[in-house]
């Protein structure tokens, strides 16, 4: 560079040069760079989450024996209750299978759950995502449903070797088909209303005009299997009021999402079972 140029002009030229190079870089290279950067820092995020786990472990270690016994007793009670529920669920599953076989209906797509720890939460005004501690190594794929004890968490938006990114239902880019509980007609759910310091909300539209939601009797918005990602019946949120659209056909409303979404620590990815060989022919 000529000597008479100032430091700032040189810097500007350098920036311009860098941007020019970036402009002409092939897309696949940019994509590769992105993935490489992601994979580069994934171990660090995972490491941080293990540190958190370790910290939790030591926090738990600090409990008194009596407290642990109490927690153990409580847990065994819960285990007993869940075992009972499991038996009921098994019975219902068998009943469903029997009815499907009787009516020669195709079987519902089934999932298995891959439980994963949350290693990073990135909840901003522009995007709402989590990074979880499992990736391709556990068979996770883009687009799969992610759930937790409170209902739907979101959808896998990208998958790395050992981590996956989950787009939360509160994200402004999230949209899904849903049902009002007890109603078969699909409605549209969108995330995106995330006021600071307050619980996240979503937005529901194309709700049929005959659905009524009040503060006293809110309705539950559940996931729909019609969209092809989520199974039926998982909670998306609660609707406390609906406003009719000007055409009188639909209603729109705000969906109160589970506040636990903001600090969820463990989620489950729903991985569909591969179709059985010969299932297509049936």
């Amino acid at each position, binding site marked *: 560079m000529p000597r008479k140029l100032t430091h700032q002009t040189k810097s500007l030229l350098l920036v311009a040069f860098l941007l020019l190079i970036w402009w002409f870089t092939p897309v696949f290279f940019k994509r590769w760079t992105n993935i490489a950067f992601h994979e580069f820092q994934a171990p660090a995020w995972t490491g941080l989450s293990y540190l958190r786990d370790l910290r939790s472990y030591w926090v738990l270690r600090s409990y008194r024996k009596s407290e642990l016994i109490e927690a153990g007793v409580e847990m065994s009670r819960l285990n007993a209750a869940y075992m009972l529920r499991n038996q009921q669920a098994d019975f219902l599953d068998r009943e469903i299978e029997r009815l499907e076989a009787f009516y020669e209906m195709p079987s519902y797509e089934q999932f298995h759950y891959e439980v994963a720890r949350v290693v990073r939460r990135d909840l901003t005004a522009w995007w709402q995502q989590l990074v979880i501690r499992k990736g391709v190594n556990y068979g996770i794929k883009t687009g799969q449903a992610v759930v937790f004890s409170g209902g739907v968490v979101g959808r896998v938006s990208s998958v790395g070797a050992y981590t996956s990114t989950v787009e939360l239902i509160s994200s402004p880019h999230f949209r899904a*088909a849903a049902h009002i509980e007890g109603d078969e007609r*699909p409605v549209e759910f969108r995330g995106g209303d995330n006021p600071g310091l307050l619980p996240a909300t979503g937005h529901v539209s*194309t709700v049929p005009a005959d659905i009524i939601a009040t503060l006293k009797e809110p309705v539950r918005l559940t996931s*729909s299997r*019609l969209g*092809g990602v989520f199974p039926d019946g998982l909670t998306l949120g609660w609707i406390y009021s609906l406003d009719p659209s000007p055409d*009188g*056909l639909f209603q729109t409303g705000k969906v109160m999402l589970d506040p636990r979404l903001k600090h969820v620590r463990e989620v489950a990815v729903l991985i569909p079972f591969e179709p059985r060989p010969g299932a297509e022919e049936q």
Partner: protein
Amino acid sequence: MVPMRRHYKKAPERQDNPVNTRIYLMYVVIGICMVALLCGLAYRQLIQQESFAAAAERQNYRRILMPGPRGIIYDRKGRVLVGNRPLFSAVVYLNELRTEFREEYFNLVRRQRDLGLNPDRYAMNIEARRNVVMRYMNRLNSLLEEEFTVDSTDIERHFSQSLLLPFPLITDLSPEDYAILIEQVPIDSPIQIISGNARWYPYGEAAAHTLGFVSDSTEFPEGTLPGETLLTFRNEAQVGRSGLEKSFNNHLQGTTGGEIWSVDPGGFQHERVVHEVPSKGQDLTISLDIDIQQAAEAAMGTKTGAVVAIEIETGEVLALVSKPAYDLNDTAPYISFEVDREIREKGAWLNRAIQGLYPPGSTFKLVTAMASLRAGAVDENTIVYCPGYFQVGRRRFHCHRRSGHGEENLIGAIRDSCNVFFYDRGTEIGVWAIANEARRFHLDRKTGIELPAETGRMLVPDPEWKAARFYGEGWFEGDTANMAIGQGFLLLTPLQMATFASSLARGVEFLQPTLLHDAGEAEVDNPISLRPEQMALVREGMRQAGERGTARLAGNPNMPVAGKTGTAQVRKDGRPTTLAWFVGYAPVQNPRIAVAVMVEGVPEEETNYGGGSTAAPIAKSVFQQYLGM
């Protein structure tokens, strides 16, 4: 002196004069030009300013009109007969694909050049647009496992005429497809899932002809959106094409809203500057009772014909059936060629209740009876002997009972539907008396019901009409005999006969039928100007017909009905057949409902439909449904 002379001479100055003149001339010319320019400027700035501003506005803004959804149609008990259902469509805004169009165009041109061909730029443009739109369609196809395609003609038409409106890729998505697209098409994709509405008919075929159908049209009121002079794009509205949808189109039509967008020089939208939300049209409550309508339709089954039921107190039409009918849901959101062909082939477009013209047969004997009473040719003591036929000149007119009814008075003649009695009395009083009686009951004109396309070609013949119609041919006594029993040239609609029955039951010459519920006081014409004892004879004849005569299958002991049946002889498609008629009312003492039934015979099937055997049981279903007996 010399200097002075030298001063006077000033040769060079004098030599400059011609130059100066030319310069002044130039100044003048330039001055005139400047003045002209200034005038022009002033003219444009001060006088033409408005038109230029308007032109600029036209150039820079586009208006999009969005019609509001139509109002709901309810039956008299508040049940939805015509509603709106959501209509989901996958669309793409061509506006957002500009870059992709350009890139694809350059790719195509480059490819052509690589092949050593001279690219046709216009054709390349069209192909580029189609390729890009098809790419999005293929994305939908892969999600929905379908094989839809797009037509470049549609794209070009849309591009040139409706650029700012969404280009439909798939219309009327099923709930499953809607859910898949909602979930799997990214929010910021150019593909948008939009919701509109289409008419929805929960009762399918029921009252199809009365309710009518709609079709998409860009002809609708503009509403209050400003900018009438701007280039306007109109979304399609649903406009009533038949039935009540057409008659009450303005009432049902929603209020138009819309948007005004500023656009770039290419006509692509830039920024929305005005937005008005469209709103739903007004609802309509009509007089039909869907239970009675469905009962009548069920009773009609697969037969061809019409049923009309009228509430006597109000004149409100409770049922208006025309068979065969069509499922209104097949007409929404549009009538496909297949549906149109199917409906046309079974002859279902015709609303037989208000457009079908039929000889009323023996049901018309009630008119002849009243004409005879009015003329004094019949009273309670009048007896006519029926030997089974009636001789007019050289022609013998038969009674339906070939062995004859013997001696019949008016009541018996109505009860037994004796032709000879009415041949005899009809020819006695003459054609004019019968025709005038029919006209008194408005049988020669439209009823004026709130439906479009009610026929006005009904015919109450008389000698003048015949002379005019058949080039001076005279009116014969045989014509009068035929007319007296509702045959011959006489043509009426089932609605007219129902109106006649309701008028008769109410004792007026005309009870205005209406399809509006709670429209106010029933509109009636003069009372029938016959003495009560004369009217009593007709009513008694009808009562006995309903009790033990030809119309006995229309009622039962718990539900006495006054009625009159008819079996008219007609030729259909050149082959003889019959029309089965019933007109009547119930209950006998305190009439509340009047019904007219007409069933067309089918020559191919050699049906043997009769008023008493075919039409009366259908009327019975209607009476039972209304009276609950």
